[in-house]
Structure formats: structure tokens, C-alpha cells
């Protein structure tokens, strides 16, 4: 914000930032930062801190970030105990300093979850998410084998619902906010995206079973319906995707139980 006198409003901040090397225990470091413009983004504030550290000859804080426009899902900081900070529906990179007060102490931590080990400082390893997708988060369609696009009509409400779920950016805030470190919101979003589309029916059951199995193996916890994930999801994905994941999982297990082979049925319905 620019004031009438043309000067930009700025904040003096105290920062408690997590410092850790891979495989070693970590601790908070305290730093003071003067004159942070309120128009700066949270990550620009972190850039300022790092530039200050370089001037003092100290190592910078490593943190993940890339697009800085809220879509790549790379940024991941727990700010004052909240993944992506205090503003709902916003990633860390889209959080701006006008949401903080002059003189405030801000605590910055990495995602905290068993399945997301710290690589350095604020950067964590989220490859567990990729493993879940690799096990079934796709519709099998080889390049070149697709039918003409309009041969598969998708009712608009279904397409919209799939799109709502597909907005997930895979950042991991759901896991970081959950006391169980559960990835159910992430997996539920992907299941909802693919399982409701006509194109996704052929692999519906095997997709659900495979993704849930991999999710468990990757060290993610179970859902106990606290709803923290929904509160901290920057894309406002809602808990009903978890209900639908549970429904599809139950359906697939029942069909598996009653099928003669003990394997998930090949068809969709």
C-alpha cells in the first residue's frame, strides 16, 4: 500500500525460522527484519531475509517455491502454525505482508509430517504424493489411441465437479495440517476427478484400491474427520471428496470380495 505521502507502508518483523540439515535434528533461529513493504509477498519477505543473511556471510534458508502465482504447488511453509499461513484459500506465495502487523513475531516451519522428511530447513520431500499417482492416478490412454473428443459427452455438472477436484495443486498442506498426517484429501481429490468422468470408469476400482494401498505404504496416516485439511487447502477442496473416496473404496473392496478371482472387477459398473 502506498500512503498519501508516496511512501510505502512497511513492517519491522521478528522471525523464528526452522533450520535443519537432512537427517539431523533441527532448531529455530531468530532473525529481525526491518522495513518489509506490506505489498511484498511472504516469499519476497523470505528473499529479503536471505539477502540479509548473504550480506552477513551466513547460509540462507532453503525453501521450495517456483511459480509464485499459486498454481505449481511447490511452496510449502507452515506460518504461525498454519500451512500456507492465516488466509484461507491462499498459497504461501500468494500470501502478502499486508496481512501481518508491525512488530509481529512470525514463526516459519516446514511441512511437518512423517511422510514428508525435511531435506533442508523449510524444504521437504513430497515424493510420496507422486508414488500415489504413479500407482493409479491416471486414465490409461496411449498416445494416439484416443477417440474423437466429442464422442465422449460429459454432462456439464459432472465435468464441473471433476474440475473442482482437479484444482488440487498437490502441495501437501492437507497432510501438513492433519494431526494424523493423512493424505486422504489429496487422494480423494484425484479419485473424484477421475472416477466420476465417463473416461475413468474402466479403471475405477483398480485405481481406487491401488492408490489407497500406496497411500498407506508411503507412510500417510488415516483420516479421523478433524477437517483441518479442508480448512488449510489453498484450493478449497472440501471433505466430501474423502467421503466419496471411502464410498469408492468400499465399493471396490466389496466387488473384489465377491468376484470369482478375488481381484478387482475389470469393468466399471
Amino acid at each position, binding site marked *: 500500500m502506498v500512503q498519501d505521502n508516496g511512501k510505502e507502508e512497511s513492517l519491522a518483523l521478528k522471525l523464528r525460522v526452522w533450520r535443519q540439515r537432512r537427517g539431523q535434528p533441527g532448531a529455530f533461529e531468530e532473525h529481525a527484519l526491518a522495513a518489509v513493504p506490506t505489498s511484498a509477498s511472504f516469499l519476497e519477505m523470505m528473499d529479503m531475509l536471505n539477502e540479509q543473511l548473504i550480506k552477513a556471510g551466513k547460509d540462507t534458508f532453503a525453501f521450495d517455491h517456483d511459480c509464485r502465482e499459486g498454481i505449481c504447488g511447490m511452496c510449502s511453509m507452515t506460518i504461525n502454525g498454519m500451512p500456507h499461513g492465516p488466509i484461507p484459500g491462499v498459497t504461501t506465495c500468494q500470501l502478502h505482508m499486508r496481512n501481518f502487523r508491525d512488530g509481529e513475531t512470525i514463526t516459519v516451519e516446514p511441512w511437518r509430517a512423517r511422510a514428508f522428511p525435511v531435506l533442508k530447513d523449510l524444504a521437504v520431500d513430497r*515424493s510420496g504424493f507422486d508414488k500415489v499417482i504413479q500407482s493409479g*492416478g491416471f486414465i490409461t490412454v496411449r498416445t494416439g489411441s484416443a477417440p474423437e473428443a466429442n464422442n465422449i459427452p460429459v454432462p456439464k455438472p459432472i465435468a464441473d465437479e471433476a474440475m473442482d477436484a482437479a484444482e488440487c495443486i498437490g502441495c501437501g498442506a492437507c497432510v501438513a495440517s492433519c494431526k494424523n498426517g493423512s493424505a486422504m484429501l489429496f487422494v480423494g481429490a484425484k479419485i473424484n476427478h477421475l472416477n466420476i468422468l465417463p473416461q475413468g470408469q474402466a479403471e475405477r476400482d483398480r485405481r481406487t484400491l491401488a492408490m489407497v494401498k500406496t497411500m498407506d505404504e508411503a507412510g500417510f496416516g488415516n483420516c479421523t474427520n478433524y477437517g483441518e485439511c479442508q480448512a488449510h487447502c489453498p484450493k478449497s477442496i472440501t471433505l466430501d471428496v474423502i467421503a466419496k473416496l471411502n464410498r469408492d473404496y468400499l465399493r471396490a473392496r466389496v466387488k473384489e470380495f465377491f468376484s470369482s478371482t478375488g481381484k478387482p472387477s475389470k469393468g466399471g459398473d
Partner: protein
Amino acid sequence: MNLDSKTPAGPLADKWNNHKAKLRLVNPANRRKYHVIVVGSGLAGSAAAASFAEMGYEVSCFCYQDSPRRAHSIAAQGGINAAKNYQNDGDSVRRLFQDTIKGGDYRAREANVYRLAQVSTSIIDQCVAQGVPFAREYGGLLANRSFGGAQVSRTFYARGQTGQQLLIGAYSALSRQIGLGTVKMYTRHEMLDLVLVDGKAKGIVTRDLVTGAVESWSSDVVVVCTGGYGNVFYLSTNAQGCNVTATFRAHRRGAGFANPCYTQIHPTCIPVHGEDQSKLTLMSESLRNDGRVWVPKNKVDCAKPASEVPEEARDYFLERKYPSYGNLAPRDIASRAAKEVCDEGRGVGQLVDGKRLGVYLDFSAAIKRLGEAEVRARYGNLFDMYENITGENAYKQPMRIFPAVHYTMGGLWVDYNLQSNIPGLFVGGEANFSDHGANRLGASALMQGLADGYFVLPYTVTDYLAGEKSGSRPSKDAPEFKAVTKDVNDRVAKLLSINGTKSPRYYHKALGKITWEKCGMARDKAGLEGAIRDLQALRDDFWKNVKVVGSGDALAPELERAGRVADFLDFGIMMCLDALTREESCGGHFRTEFQDAGEAKRDDAQYAHAAVWEWTGEGQLPARHVEPLVYEETQLSTRSYK
């Protein structure tokens, strides 16, 4: 430098089909014996890696992000073009081709552009089958919109997140192959050099960003899909990590770099707000479908709130200057027009460095016509994003926008097969130069990335591999691999050892200031000559005084940035030299000396060619070569959007 485009003979419409029929094949049983390296996991890279693996090749894919899903293709908002003609409004492959080649101001290779238009329809089929949730009509069929100045509705979109959804589609295909074990995925790995054996690309050297380990990888072919170089301007709409290193390192090993001066300035970005800004955010071009662009007619009104400027005191300059296209004039033209009014002192918004660099994008007429609910349904997420960043509500007051660097049309030179002048080095997506000429039309980047990855590279790389003996790839112990690995280690060690006084970001900002001012929206001879001198001095200073904190054996973001900035410094010099030696204006390249009352003045007699630069050694200026652009079926005309 051999710049044979290998454009097939015959009528444009038949070239690709005839060519495909002649391309050699590899027996399915032999394919697993070939190792294909794909660098980059955006639309082109993910699509190519997944397709190669489906065909049966052994594939390794590398990206610097923590997951292939995060590549910057994800940030494309508006849509993807395809000549489906679902709207029955006169679209066709021929028309998409004509629009694209005209949009590029006749500086693209005709045959490549035609092929792009041809395969565009298959892309939509592929993506829909993957489950990409494109917008739909109530009847369940696909919806389209007109985008970026097209006079037909050929753009497919998924809300304001088309790039994200297409990338997730390609990422899911890639993930399936990773799960099957046919692609080995190396995330948080940065390609730092290319390895040539007997003049052919046979591998790469990477740095593991987590452990710092420098490793080499041997392959039968290398496919580079590492995006563009927009971050040479420091502030751009690119992601923070986007860089020129992979393509520039290949350039240093002999690959020609074509048309680096062709950079696209996108007209609708949120204006710069201050010194510590790290990034410019794009507001989708689709906003121009319903928003009206204006500035006050009189300078005295510029400091007032928009609501206090009466209708008759507003200058809707795009509608005034380009009545037939109005607010939808192509990107280069809309950007320049905005710059012009701001240079006249009629810009709006806060003063930054004593200037107001912004124009209004006003939705009040659209809200009156459609209602706020409809405007919210069309652009809600963009309005929210705007409010997050600026703290202003665009339903109540006009948005402020200003042009920003967005896309780079230049890239490694490739022939019709997307092969560079180094045999075995293929280049796809934004990293190559071939399809967009001097200016890219909206919704064409996603089309090109996926066209290259799904429907071109699988054919042309196979043809190349058919000529390479299976099992003939060199061992990583070969002297060529050891030598390049040593070069990379030496360079990393050098960056860490300088221990000067200025941060890599300091140099990046200084570089961006020079390139934006002298090689941005308007360029001239004196400015470019000065920029080259300034950049040379900055480069020398960098290698004496940069301070890189951190260590080589852990995540070291400053070391990553330093390496990228070092390459950008050399690259920036080449970009300015290219702009200096292209003595005409075309598309996004605007030389103030060559204009017709503010419109770009091309010189087809002298410059209907691609300029291709050859590395000549450390500290030397690169050498210029040309590939003449041959137009067999296109009449070159002056672009007019009036």
C-alpha cells in the same frame, strides 16, 4: 553450421503425412535397447517421455522441481487452440495455420506451423481421453471461446487453469510409465551440460540438487524440453526456477541458438509495485474479451481514482487505434500501445521510480451488460488473485495492468524433425524456435508443447534411432563423459570459491534492468550497443565478486541461482546482439528506427530468415548464421489489425 531445414517436398497440406510415411521405424523388440533422455517435464517433456515409454524405449526424465507436475506449463491460464471447428464458424487447419503464421509476423517456418495446425485436433482427443476436464456445454460436448484476437472460437479451456489441467494429463501419462518402471524419473536434478561423442549427443551431466552429486548419464538420444529464457529479464511471468542453462549449455557445445531477440511481452500483467518484487503475475488474456482498456486523456487525471475520471475524459486507446480488433489486438501490438500511452505520461497507478506504469482494464461495462454474477463465473479466480496481490477489488474499481515478459519465441535451432544441428539432440516446446516466429498468439504455446511431445518427437526421434546401432551408446567411463563431468565440477567449485561481496540475486536484478530497458518492448541501435557493453562488464564483475553461500553437498538455492545467472549473462549478450543485427521490426521485436507511425516495419527482402548464433568461445561474441525462410504457399503481407 549446417542449417538444412529438411523441409519435405510437396504441397504444405501433404508434407507431414508424406514425411511420416518415409520416416524409418524401430522394431518393437529392439526399442528397449535404446535409452532416451528427456530433460524437462512440462507439456513437451512429459508428453514425449510418456510417449517414448509407451512405444517401448528405455526412458530417463529429469526435472529441477520436486515433482514433474510442477513444471511451469502449469501456469498457463487461457486455453489451447485446435482446428476442430466445433463452433461451425469457419475454422480449419488452413485457417489456424494462416492465423499462426501471420501472428508470428511471417518469421516462422511455414511447414512446421502447418504441421502444428494439423496435429492440433489430435491433442484435444488425447487430452479428453486422459480426463482433462475441459469446459463443456450442457449437452455434454466441448465448449470453446475466442481467444487472443482470433476471429473464430477455437480455444479449449479448463476454467482459468488450462495449463494446469493439460500438464496434469501429461503428468498422469508419465506417472503411469514411472509406475510401470519404463521411465526412470529424476526430480530435483538440473542438467548442467551436454555430452557429445563423435559429434553426436550421447548424454548429459546433471547435479542432484539435494545431495550436490554431479553425475553423467549416457543415452542414444537427448531430448531437451526445458522451456524459455524469459527470466533473463529478472522480472517476468516465468517461475523462479525457469532458466536458459540446459539450452545454453547445449549451445556452448555447438547447438545453434535461433532468434534469441524474439521475446513476447504480455499485455495483461499486474504492474510492478516495488524494489523487492520477485515476479510479475499474469492476468489471463481472456480478461480482454470483456474488459476495456483505457487511460485518461489528460495527464492531470492520472493521479485521480478511476471513478473520478468522467467517460468523455477516457481514452480507450486500443478501440480507438484498432477498431476491428479493439481490446483483442494481438499481444505485441496491445503491449506496445500500452507502453506508448505510459511514455506519454498518461499511465495510471502508483509512482515507481517517478513513473506511473499501468493502464486500466475496466469491467464496469461488462458488469452492467452481464451482471456481476456472470463476470464472477467467467473470471472469479482471476479477480480473487488480483485482490490477493494488490489489495484492490476489481468488481468495484478497474484493474491496473502493464505488459511483462511472458514467453520467448527464440530457442535452439531445429530442423523439421525438431533435431538441432547436433545429431541426436532434439528440442521440443518453448525451448525450440520453430513455430511462433516473432510473436506467439494466445493459446498456441500449450498446443505446440503437446504437439511436439505427443505427435512429432515420437516419429522423428524413432527415425533417428533407426540409424543408430542398438547397444552402441558409449559407456559413462568414456573420456568424453569424464571431461564434461570435470568441467561441471570445476564450474561449481569456482562459483563457491569466489566469495565476493554481492549476491547472485544482485546480479540477476542488474541484468534484468539492462535487458528490460534496452532490449524490452522497444529497442534501438545505441541502446543495444550500450547494453552489450554493460552486460560484458557485469559478467566480468560477476566472476570476480559474486558471493555464493551454502555448500556443494546439500540443497543450495544460491548456488543454483548463481549458475543460472552466469548463463543468463552470456545469453543476454547474445540476445542483445541478435536484436542489434536484426535491422527491422517484426512481431515482438520492435526497433524504434524501423516503424510506420508506431507499427512494426518488416524488411522481408533482408530479414526473412532465422538468425542462428554459434558459440565461438568464452568471452567472444557469437557468430551469426542464417536459415532463409521459404514461403511456398503464404503471401507475406503487412499485419493489420485496424
